[in-house]
Structure formats: C-alpha cells, structure tokens
C-alpha cells in the first residue's frame, strides 16, 4: 500500500515548550491510525502541523508524495486533508447546511447540484439532516461534534483527522459514531484519530501511536501497545514503583 502521510523529523516548540519533537511516522493508504497520549502531550499540535494551522520549525511533512510542509492550511485541505476540531468551530451564524456547503464548495471544489447532493447525503449520514436549517451556533454539543465530522466529510478528504470526537457521548451515541466512522473507512479514506475513549478507538483502528512531550514513544499493533508497560506507565499514569 502506498504511503498517504509521512512525517519526517517534524519539530515545533513554543519557547521552552516542545509540542513536537522529531516526530517520524507514516500512514498507509486506507489505514486507520489511533493516537494516544496524556493531555498536553502534543496530539492536537501534531494535527495543527499536519493541517497547516501551525508551521513546523523543522522536518518534512509529505502528503500523497508531495512535500506539503510549506503549504497553507487551505491548500492542504483542497489537496485532501480535512479535520474535526476537539473544541467545535462552527460557523455560528450560518445554518448547518451552509456549514457543510462551505466545505463542499471550498474544500472539495464542488458546485451546484453536486455540492448540494454531497452535503445532504453527509448530513443524513451523520444524523444532522433534521437540523439542516438550524443556526449552527445554537446546536447542542453532540450536534456540534456531528457537524465537525459532517463538515470534514464534505471536503471529500483522502485523509481525515479526528480530534476527540467521541468524548462526552453516551454509549449509544458512541456506538453510532463508530459505525459512521467505519462506514467512512470503507470508502477508502485514511484516518488518524486522537481519542481518549479507548474502546471506541480500538473498534476502528489498525495501529496505534503514543505521543508524550511531543515525542513518538511507541507505535504498533493496538493490543500490543495497550499492554506495553512503558505505555501503561506514561499514558495511564501507573507507576509500578509506588
């Protein structure tokens, strides 16, 4: 399988705080990768570096074979990288439908009927169709999270970055979300998913990476990673000596 995303020694620091420390890893075409790490480990920063809302201090990011390190966020989206935000970022004064239409017309470059069809399909798929005419700023948290996913999907991504999209959902809602994401995967979209709800993550991903202090500290098959002592110590805070 071809490599869709490749990070090669990517670093970023804000003064003394390092949010990415020489990260090197790859994502294969169609793969679903889970990202674990404690709060403040640099997971969201890694997404910001990949999507271009944060510029890397060093290293190279490649997407679909292109060096995208210097590309603007907008260009990366149009090339096929879409994300959801951990803290939802709706266009508050626009309707839910118009929110998705922005992604379809700008990110996916569609127009007219094609854009409209995509948006309505994705809204149906994410359970937001009944709220299509509602102002996005007035949505509940759950619906805002759905809108994050819907909007990212309407950009027709090749690579979808999901940032803690399952947090705060009930079991049933979480189950529905897992099914939606599995359905997205089946269409061939590669996924990187940051999630603290580990059981949701394990239901979808092929591989896990663990980040702490901006560093990649482990990578591999999900169950192996979950059981490795250094990951349990750092991620779950279980210090064997105490």
């Amino acid at each position, binding site marked *: 399988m071809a490599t869709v995303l490749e990070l090669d020694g990517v670093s970023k620091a804000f003064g003394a705080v390092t949010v990415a420390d020489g990260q090197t890893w790859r994502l294969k075409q169609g793969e679903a990768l889970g990202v674990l790490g404690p709060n403040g480990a640099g997971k969201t920063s890694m997404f910001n570096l990949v*999507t*271009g*809302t944060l510029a890397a201090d060093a290293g190279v990011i490649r997407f679909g074979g292109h060096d995208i390190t210097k590309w*603007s*966020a*907008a*260009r990366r*989206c*149009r090339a096929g990288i*879409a*994300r959801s*935000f951990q803290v939802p*970022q*709706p*266009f*508050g*004064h*626009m*309707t839910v*439908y*118009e929110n998705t*239409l*922005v*992604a379809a*017309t*700008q*990110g*996916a*470059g569609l*127009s007219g009927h094609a854009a*409209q069809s995509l948006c*309505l*399909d994705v*809204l*149906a*798929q*994410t*359970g937001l*169709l*009944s709220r*299509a*005419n509602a102002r996005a700023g007035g949505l509940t948290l759950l619906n805002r999270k759905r809108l994050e996913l819907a*909007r990212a999907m309407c*950009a027709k991504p090749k690579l979808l970055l999901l940032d803690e999209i399952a947090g705060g959902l*009930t079991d*049933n*809602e979480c189950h*529905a979300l897992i*099914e*939606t994401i*599995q*359905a997205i995967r089946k269409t061939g979209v590669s996924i990187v998913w940051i999630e603290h709800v580990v059981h949701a993550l394990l239901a979808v991903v092929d591989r896990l990476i663990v980040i702490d202090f901006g560093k990649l500290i482990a990578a591999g098959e999900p169950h192996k990673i979950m059981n490795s002592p250094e990951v349990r110590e750092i991620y779950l805070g279980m210090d064997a000596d105490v």
Partner: protein
Amino acid sequence: MSDMTKHAALRPMRPAGLSVSRASRASTITMVLCVVIVLGLVAAPWWAGRADLRLMGEMFLYLSLAVLWNLLAGYAGLVSVGQQAFVGFGGYMLFALTMLWGVPPLAAIALSGVIGAVVAMPVAALIFRLRGAYFAIGTWVVAEVFRLVAAQIGALGGGSGTSLSPQIVKALADGRAAREALTFWLALTLAVGVIAAVFWLLRSRHGLALTAIRDNELASKSLGIDIWRTKFLTYVVVGGLTTLTGSLIFLQKIRISPEAAFSANDWTAFVIFIVVIGGIGTLEGPILGTLIFFALRETLADLGTIYLIILGVLAIAIMVRAPRGLWGLVSEKTGVDLFPLSRRVRGLDR
C-alpha cells in the same frame, strides 16, 4: 438518542424530495417592488424638479458608497476609514483623463473604475499586513498620501484644485436638462448595479467564503478557504467600484480640490454613519441608512454644527441600543429578509 442517529450509519442515503432554495415570499415581493421603483426612478427626469433630481442623484452615489463599505467592513471584516482615497482618486482620474488626455467623459468614468481596481492591488498588498485598528489607521494614511500626491499635480490646480472645462461638460449631452438627466441616470445605474453586484457576489461561493471567514477564520482556512485571497479580491472589487463612484461624484460636482476629493468626513464618516444606523452586515441596512441619513440632512442641515452633533448622538445611541442597526431591529421583530442570502433545505418535514 434519536432514531435518526441510530440508523444514520446504516442508512447513509438521504430521503427523496429534498431541495435547497433561497427565495421567500417577501423576497419575491421585494424583487417586484424593486423593479417598479427602479422603473419609476428611470422616469424621474420627467416628473421630478431639478433640485430633487440632483438630490436623488447624490443619494444614489452615497448608497453605492455605503453598500460597498458594508461589503468591505460588514462582510469581509476590513474596517477601512480610508475609502476617500478611492473616491478622490476616481474624481482625479476623471479630471486627468478628460482634461489632460482627452478621453471622453463616459469612457473616462469606466476607465477610472478599472484603474481604481488596479491601484487597489498594491494598496491591499501593503495594508493587509496590518490588523484591526492598525489596518484602519493604515487605510487612513493611504488616503492622506493620495491627497498629498493629488495636491502636487500642478496641471489639475495643485492644492487649490480645478473645474471641469466647459467643453468637456458640454460634450456630455446637449443642454443642461439633458446633462442633468444623464448624470442622474448614471448615478441610478451605478447604485442599482452595485447593489445587484454585491447581492450576486454574496450569493456566490465567494460570498459563502466571506461569511464563513467572518464567523470563524480557523475553521475557514481548515476547510480550504484562502482567507487572504478572498479578502484581497473583495478589497480590489470594492476599490474599483468606489473609484467609479468617485468619478461620478465629481462629474456631478464639476469642481475638484484635494480637500473635497479626499474628505474623510464626506466619503467615510457619513458612509459609516449610514451603514451603522441602517445595519452593518446586511444588504438592507445601507439602503435604509441612506434614506434616514438624507431625511435627517434635508431637515436638520440648517442647524449647522448642531446637525453633526445630532448625527453623532444618534449613531452612538443606535450602536448601544441596537448594534445590528435599525434593519437589525426590523428583521428581529418581523423575521423579514428582503434580499435572502441564506439557503434553506426544503422538504424535511415529509
């Protein structure tokens, strides 16, 4: 959890019979009314007196400035207090093209719009480096630079200005009545054209991008919107059309001087007043604001300085009590949307 969610992943296709539209009954009535009003106005040279014709012409020019400033500040978030740079530039281009290079007046007006857009490009590249209040001050500085440059042009009277030569004025049309009708029609065409262009622009994907940027820049750029380019394009279009308006303003005035051409009071302060009291960020706002501004001016202008104080107090009162302007109040109370920009999905209830 709703049933909808439960089945969402299993039933990805949407129900049949959905459509998206923007028209409403109010908007259809608006369009019909607009056509009737415009037709009535086209005939104005036959039913209105000279003074009224002149006043309406001036209103259309202010309306066009207000609609353009509203697009810039209310939609693109570019709060410029230096649009007098383009108004004055338009006036000076008209005078220079006709008097120095012998271009016919109507061609000079059209040409000035194009040149204005071209000039707006390097100006944008320069001032887009500034943000917020610094941007606003930057636009004012640019306007002052334009004014100082205009005052250096000896061939156009330098600091004291000049008048459009009688041959050029006479070349416009035969006789004073015909000339006055022509300048009126030009102003009307400009105002209708500017409103139509801005309406069309806001309904296009460019307008959708502008509205998105206004709501959330982070989400906008992450969804593929080139923010700089979108704002740049808006600034250039507004710059060109403001220049065009400026050339028409000084065709009507026939006399130009750096002070009058680049007046921050006349071409920016009053325009901001119109947009703020009417309702910033709406298409209806500048139209309502222009009507109110001219109603106040015609009834209170004899009061001199007190008139300006009243305008200021009114603007402050509206900013405090109704930040979305008078149109904001109207649409809040009635839910009416005369120029619908929002898209609605129809057929959801079936």
